[in-house]
């Protein structure tokens, strides 16, 4: 009796499925591909592109401007040790630490103002986090304020773009565990909501699923051992970051999203962000700290990525909030003219560099520094007396 013509093929395919070697070959190829991601990348700066650099000012070897949680204490401690008469804290996003089309001796607004104010006994310190949300600025303020000995003014940059999110990134969540920060946040409904989002901080968020277990220790040791002896293992975070950023770019390409695409307001996070700023001003009031809320410069030579009516509403809301809460207000929207901005890396696959609506050149930093100083001299002259 003969078998059907395709019985042999079916049997062969069936037997192929039952073999280990396709899986072994696949594992080899997969690991080879992963091993190609051998370059370290700063993903928080990936979006800036080649045109823009980050610069964090220092004074006599000590940082006065940082975006890293583990450096904040160094910034605050060094300033306290210098015993300035007055301390000013500046909170914002990457606009404060990025210079578009930078040359070697370009300075940020922080460096410019620090040099100007320090002889007057006033020290400027800056905390700026890429895409800083308002809850993050609130947390940063409360943490720093509990440690600074002569804090007089907090200048808070309110970027409309950053009102589209209201979470606190994992890297900043350790600040919520600080006793003084925790106690201050507990006094407001917004602060209590923030604290709910983080009950326990793990040293390594990669092991969060193993918190308080025996396996946490073994996993940590095995990871360290593998990272030490197998380079491909330690390349995984880079591979992950690259994959996710390429998926982001692919999404933008498919949907035609670029730096100029209109970003609509999201009411939920907008309200949460406004509540966070209210809580910041309230916390500052109890410390006797004056708050300057300002709308940052916006590029106006190109149609900005905001819906005009929503952006108008935002500016009015900030002004109203400042009035109601007893904070100072300034609008620096027109301070930096179009030619002093720059370009940003393409947000889609194969695209050209696009208009940068967040980061300007050195001259823009100088103009921002002047605008900030003028606002303080008019609204709070005792800052410099």
């Amino acid at each position, binding site marked *: 009796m003969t078998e059907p013509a*395709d019985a042999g*093929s*079916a049997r*062969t*395919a*069936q037997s*192929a*499925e*039952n*073999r*280990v070697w*396709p*899986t072994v*070959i*696949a*594992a080899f*190829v*997969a*690991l080879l*591909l*992963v091993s190609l991601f051998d370059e370290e990348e700063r993903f928080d700066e990936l979006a800036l592109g080649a045109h823009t650099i980050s610069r964090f000012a220092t004074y006599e070897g000590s940082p006065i401007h940082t975006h890293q949680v583990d450096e904040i204490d160094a910034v605050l401690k060094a300033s306290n040790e210098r015993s300035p008469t007055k301390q000013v804290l500046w909170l914002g996003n990457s606009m404060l630490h990025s210079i578009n089309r930078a040359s070697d001796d370009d300075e940020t607004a922080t460096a410019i103002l620090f040099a100007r104010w320090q002889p007057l006994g006033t020290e400027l310190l800056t905390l700026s986090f890429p895409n800083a949300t308002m809850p993050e600025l609130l947390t940063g303020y409360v943490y720093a304020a509990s440690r600074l000995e002569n804090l007089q003014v907090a200048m808070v940059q309110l970027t409309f773009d950053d009102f*589209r*999110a209201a*979470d606190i990134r994992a890297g900043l969540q350790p600040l919520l565990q600080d006793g003084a920060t925790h106690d201050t946040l507990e006094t407001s409904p917004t602060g209590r909501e923030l604290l709910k*989002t983080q009950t326990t901080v793990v040293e390594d*968020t*990669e*092991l*969060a*699923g*193993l918190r*308080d*277990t*025996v*396996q946490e220790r*073994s*996993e940590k040791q*095995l*990871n360290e051992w*593998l990272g030490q002896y197998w380079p491909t293992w330690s390349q*995984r975070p880079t*591979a*992950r970051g690259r*994959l996710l950023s390429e998926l982001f770019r692919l*999404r933008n390409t498919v949907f035609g999203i670029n730096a100029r695409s209109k970003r609509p307001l*999201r*009411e*939920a996070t907008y*309200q*949460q962000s406004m509540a966070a700023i209210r809580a910041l001003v309230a916390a500052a009031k109890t410390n006797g700290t004056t708050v300057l809320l300002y709308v940052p410069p916006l590029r106006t030579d190109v149609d900005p990525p905001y819906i005009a009516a929503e952006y108008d509403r935002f500016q009015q809301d900030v002004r109203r909030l400042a009035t109601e809460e007893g904070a100072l207000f300034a609008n620096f929207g027109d301070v930096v003219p179009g030619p002093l901005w720059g370009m940003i890396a393409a947000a889609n696959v194969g695209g050209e560099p696009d208009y940068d609506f967040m980061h300007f050149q050195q001259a823009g930093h100088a103009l921002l520094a002047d605008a900030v100083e003028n606002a303080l001299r008019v609204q709070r002259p005792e800052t410099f007396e």
Partner: protein
Amino acid sequence: MIFNSVTFLAFLCVVLLLYWTLPRRARLWMLFIASLTFYGFWRWEYLPVMLGSAVTDYLVSLRIAATENRKRRRRLLLISLVVNLGLLFYFKYLQFTVDNVWVGLRALGVVTPPPILDIILPLGISFYTFQTISYTVDVYRKQTEPLREFVLYGCFVTFFPQLVAGPVLRLAEVTPQLDRRPKFTQTAFAGGLRRVLMGLFLKVVVADNLSPFVDAGFEQDVATLGAIDVWTLAFMFGFQIYCDFSAYSHIALGCAKMMGIEFPENFNFPYAASSPKDFWGRWHISLSSWIRDYLYLPLSGARFNVGKTGSTGGLQDAVTEKRSDTRTRALFLTWAIMGLWHGANWTFVFWGVYHAVCVFVFRATKGARVRLGPRLRRWGGWAITLPIMMLSWIPFRARDLGHTFALYAKLFQPGGYVRLGMRENIYLIAALMMMAFGATYFASTQVVPRLRRSPALFYTVETATMVIVIGLAFIFLRPIQQFIYFQF
């Protein structure tokens, strides 16, 4: 020990090597100690709880089998139930009970807050207590003889692939395979390895990356959400919990298969179900069959037919039951208990009753459905069943009943269908997941059988698929989240 970790992979390699090289008795003791070690890597101090439950049922079952006196057998069974359900009540439901008693006391004017008992829920307690209860009940029903060899029994109860989150196994399903190690075949090993890798992919690449979106959505102020947001959250959590739980099952079945041991399937494309009954024949099959055999059938007064039970899934009838009102009462009570089994919160009870209503309506409309053509029953049924089943995940994930009802209320607000309240990416990902599920179902049922006719093409596609699966699982392998069903 968590599956998605380097520690577990190292553990598995060592266990497999010893499993295939040791003689029988040493192999069984190795498996038993390895399983205890697996559990102890979570918290070793809870090992006595698990061993206490296991030893109780071991001894009770031997005593039951040793006597024909019905009253004595029943008393012994009661001991087992009291110990196991007592443990479950203490660790899982005591705080819940206290909180609810305090609600009553508050109504009587008591102002002090309820005591916080600070009881940690032992990992897997809901699973291993059910497994040992089923063993004792089967001995009581004379469906099986008790195991006299303690180490073999210990392996059955604590077998690490299924210890923490199932599948809930019957004695006859696994013990003969533990007792006599099957012959090593490349078929089984290769198949098991592929399942483990696929499970890791579903967990660390898919489920863990869906989680932040789902968490953010459910934490968002309900007032800012619309109807489309609620539908999106329901589907997203449905995708997350399926990928998470089926991942666990894949890894569990895969590990067992690498030892030559076949577990019953726990999932069978549940989101392709054409009715609520069909859904429960495809989702967490081992649990729904356990509930049928040990809860629903006894409650409905049905005669227990040995030949028609086992882990085939669903609340199917083993025999013709008695009156329909008895069946209905049994249906609702069973589902309420099944809901409560998942968690000590009224949301889970609501979830259970929701499914009971679905099954009840399905039964009640049988007359109308039989008049429909098979295609309409299949695809029309799917189009109705899928959204209903997805919506059932809202109470499963919501904080409390108030949150649940607030979310459900959004579905009836027409204005909520014209605005979006969450980050744009979540809608995109939900749409992509829906397409991916459809594509996977189509590929599994239509494409793969055809591919098998061409070995060269099959090799190529198989290898290419595994490159993606292994590469991504390798990149994303981190124990950042426990499995969702660990909390049960």
